[in-house]
């Protein structure tokens, strides 16, 4: 029998529909694989083995009973720990939420469950999604499946590592400044940040409310589209959720697989997002991809986005400002850990302070302090106010560019996966890693990362970022699927088929495989 963990969600969907495999078989195979390799990868903070198998059995029973099921019913999914889940701890990678089980499901989680997907567990992340490497997780870093000495990206390194190491075909992520796309790029997987407001944020533990967006993490563009169709659409519980009706992203992705799908597509290359500061192998693969696109009939247009150079500065004012307020609720009064001060009186204020001191990691504290400062009276206009103006300018850059082109492209990240510890002592270097992804969050436009090869110098995955105008997520899927097909045709294989085969951990397979 084929190894079902190597199949895409779309392939599994067919097998499940014609009942050549059961959801229990698929789920168990993934759980066994997690048991075998995740002590090394550490993609998961929590694995819900029993619950997953029970859910899978229910889906199999419903299928046997002839129930109408969605295309992803019975397929396992990993859930980023930033999302509230009724039956699993939700810690956002922070000590302060250790063991906290929410009394509710995030809207996207509810939709995933309603669609019959099988939650396998919760994936690792930088604490409160602050970071680009998962090194800021309070529960230890996730390792890049391509090289265990390297970071899997962040903040959603756990979800990206889970799908790229075949522990799950699908995962949910959240992207505030690149937390879905950059991990996808450095692990050779696919990640999409939808249009702001396209996917509900209700139940997603907020980092920066005006930037956060939940999205799919997968191995193929079609799989991402299928998952997007499940989680997207208006949610009355999120006031910033768009009320638009959306076309099928899966249909768009399938349309992209048709011959000649790239013919006449105007592809804008953002001048400011290449060259200086970009790893040679990253730039090389990008240039080669543009050449292939051109050969496929796309029209390559260079566009300028002059205000992108201020994006990081604006982002690192807006994000900490919003985060400092969003994270105020972690005060030990209603949930999470409570730490009493070592000495002195036990006042609520002092307990709050002691809890926050013990519960938050260094990057979280750094950003809370930055944001508190940026919002302070007398500084507001200079910092937060100016950053909002930059944001408007960046939105205008996008608008201007999209009058000339259908999609914009750039490398998803300036480098391939870096080594653990390389940027821990230098926050600015870590922040600069998001230079390519941040503009889409500031403007609210959708962005996707998909693999565009391995960098020759280190043999590590390089990601291509595609961006479309706001609400044109379908265009992203159509063009993305077309480029993915074009690249895979040029290589003769998928990129992830080149990833090292991870050795099973015997200790786990022997005991856990017998269920």
């Amino acid at each position: 029998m084929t190894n079902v963990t190597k199949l895409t969600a779309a392939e599994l969907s067919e097998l499940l529909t014609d009942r050549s495999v059961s959801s229990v078989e698929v789920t168990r195979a993934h759980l066994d694989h997690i048991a075998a390799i995740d002590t090394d990868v550490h993609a998961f903070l929590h694995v819900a083995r029993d619950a997953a198998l029970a859910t899978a059995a229910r889906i199999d029973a419903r299928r046997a009973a002839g129930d109408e099921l969605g295309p992803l019913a019975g397929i396992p999914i990993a859930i980023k720990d930033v999302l509230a889940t009724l039956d699993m701890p939700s810690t956002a990678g922070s000590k302060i939420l250790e063991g906290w089980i929410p009394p509710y499901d995030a809207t996207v989680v509810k939709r995933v469950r309603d669609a019959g997907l099988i939650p396998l567990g919760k994936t690792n992340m930088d604490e409160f999604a602050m970071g680009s490497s998962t090194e800021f997780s309070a529960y230890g870093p996730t390792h890049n499946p391509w090289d265990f000495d390297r970071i899997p990206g962040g903040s959603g390194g756990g979800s990206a590592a889970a799908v790229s190491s075949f522990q799950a075909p699908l995962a949910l992520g959240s992207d505030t400044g690149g937390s879905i796309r950059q991990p996808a790029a450095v692990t050779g997987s696919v990640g999409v940040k939808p249009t702001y407001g396209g996917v509900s944020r209700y139940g997603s533990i907020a980092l920066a409310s005006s930037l956060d967006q939940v999205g799919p993490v997968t191995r193929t563009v079609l799989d991402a589209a299928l998952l997007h169709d499940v989680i997207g659409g208006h949610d009355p519980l999120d006031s910033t959720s768009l009320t638009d009706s959306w076309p099928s992203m899966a249909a768009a992705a399938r349309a992209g697989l048709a011959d000649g799908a790239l013919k006449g597509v105007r592809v804008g290359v953002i001048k400011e997002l290449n060259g200086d500061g970009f790893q040679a192998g990253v730039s090389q693969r990008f240039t080669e991809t543009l050449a292939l696109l051109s050969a496929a009939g796309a029209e390559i247009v260079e566009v300028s986005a002059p205000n992108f150079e201020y994006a990081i500065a604006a982002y690192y004012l807006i994000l900490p400002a919003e985060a400092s307020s969003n994270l105020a609720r972690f005060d030990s009064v209603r949930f999470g850990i409570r730490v009493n001060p070592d000495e002195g009186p036990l006042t609520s204020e002092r307990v709050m302070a002691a809890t926050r001191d013990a519960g938050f990691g260094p990057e979280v504290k750094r950003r809370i302090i930055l944001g508190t400062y940026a919002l302070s009276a007398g500084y507001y206009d200079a910092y937060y106010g100016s950053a909002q103006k930059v944001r408007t300018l960046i939105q205008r850059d996008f608008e201007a560019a999209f009058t000339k082109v259908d999609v914009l492209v750039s490398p998803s990240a300036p480098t391939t996966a870096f080594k653990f510890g390389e940027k821990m002592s230098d926050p600015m270097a870590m922040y600069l890693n998001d230079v390519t992804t941040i503009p889409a969050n500031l403007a609210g436009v959708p962005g996707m990362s998909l693999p565009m090869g391995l960098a020759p110098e280190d043999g590590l995955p390089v990601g291509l970022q595609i961006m479309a105008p706001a609400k044109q997520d379908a265009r992203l899927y159509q063009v993305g699927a077309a480029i993915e097909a074009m690249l895979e045709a040029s290589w003769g294989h998928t990129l992830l088929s080149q990833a090292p085969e991870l050795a099973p951990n015997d200790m786990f397979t022997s005991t856990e495989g017998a269920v």
Partner: protein
Amino acid sequence: MKKAELMDYDKALELFEPVLGFEVHVELNTKTKMFCGCANEFGQGANTNTCPTCLGLPGGLPQVNAQAIESSIRLGLALGCEIAEYSRFARKNYFYPDTAKNFQTSQYDEPIAFNGQLTIELESGRLVTVDIERAHMEDDAGKLTHVGGATGRIQGADYSLVDYNRGGVPLVEIVTQMIEGGEADSPEIGRTYVAAIREIVKALGVSNARMEEGNVRCDANVSLRPRGSNILGTRTETKNVNSLRSVEKAVRYEIQRQAALLQAGGTITQETRHWHEDTGITSAGRPKSDADDYRYFPEPDLVPVAPSREWVEELRATLPEPPAARRKRLQADWGFADLEFQDVVNSDLMDAVEATIAAGASAQAARKWWTGEVARLANVAGVSADSLVQPDQVAALIELVVAGTLTDRLARQVLEGVINGEGTPLEVVEFRGLAVVSDDGALIVAIDEALAAQPDVLAKIRDGKVQAAGAVIGAVMKAMRGQADAARVRELVLERAGSADGSAE
């Protein structure tokens, strides 16, 4: 808490000019909370009306209650405010355990309503126009109960309990401009202003407007300016003054306290102060400065509120007659003397009296019954008069009295029956058999018996000592168990005494 040194009130006004400002919080009576679907109601178990959003759980998000927006706009319009074309919520950041998110979702530089005016009339007839700076929307905090310790305050408590049922309840905060020139009327201006706000929100139906339940809460700012100076004094903010009388007393107290302190060479600390209903004094709360940094910024989880002009005009058309104008009209219509009308207004019985008159009663009878017997029974029961009995029942009762079916005394018994739930006044009359005996035949029998039993009285009547008839009338009324019209009995007694004379035939 020791009572502060107070200066004689007249003396204080001789030396200083009081400058006032009020922040009145009105709790809206929407079905659900400001930013979530939880019920906006009290009397439930602690923390039962809560959800991830109003508990400030990680991942919770707010949604604006459309009814609260509508109520706020109507309130803004009733206060003569302009309604913003574009209004935003903002986060007011501060840590306190009753504030689940550790920020209050309020409005900062873009309130829903601004630039209003409210003219109030003092008892002297003096009209005072209060300028309204703004009326903005926000969510209420939860309720803290401090357990242990002497003061019931957070300082010194062993522990504190938080009930978030109130957390997230919609509030409109109405902020006045500085009120100058109030002079000796300043305390009354405070009371009358808050009363006017209360009356308006009640007339609009946007709030239950019960001060004792905290539906309307007043923070009173008071500062003193030395006569001849144009420099404003430092102000204090007395929080949560929750009755009209207390507003008046608190303002007066602060004027006297601050005057004494300033006169003794002291300085006023800019601070919040607590009002103590029992002792009638204020005490220092926490220091407050204009530089308190709440790090306001626009609430990114909510989209701006942009009410269309058409909608605002539609809502304007739903405004009730302004309460002050209505009072003038009703007093004229009813022909009440000032004192009679004040009695009705102060007892909060205008609506009840109006409805009773509409149901057919005369104005004076309606006033007499509501402010008299109904109010008395309500007082005994410890409830509001208008919750005790319906206006149409009172009108029906009055009709029975006018028709002569009931005497006032019987009518009072019938009212008790109605309040006891025995039915309409007519049903109570039948059920209790309380109607006046209007059958002369039955009365004459009783009178003749009584006269026969008291021949000395009969003799006196015949001698023209008519006042002696009282003893016979009393006996007859007793025999009729009170269900007779005493005036008719008197008539018949005199008649029978006369005819008894002639009955010797």
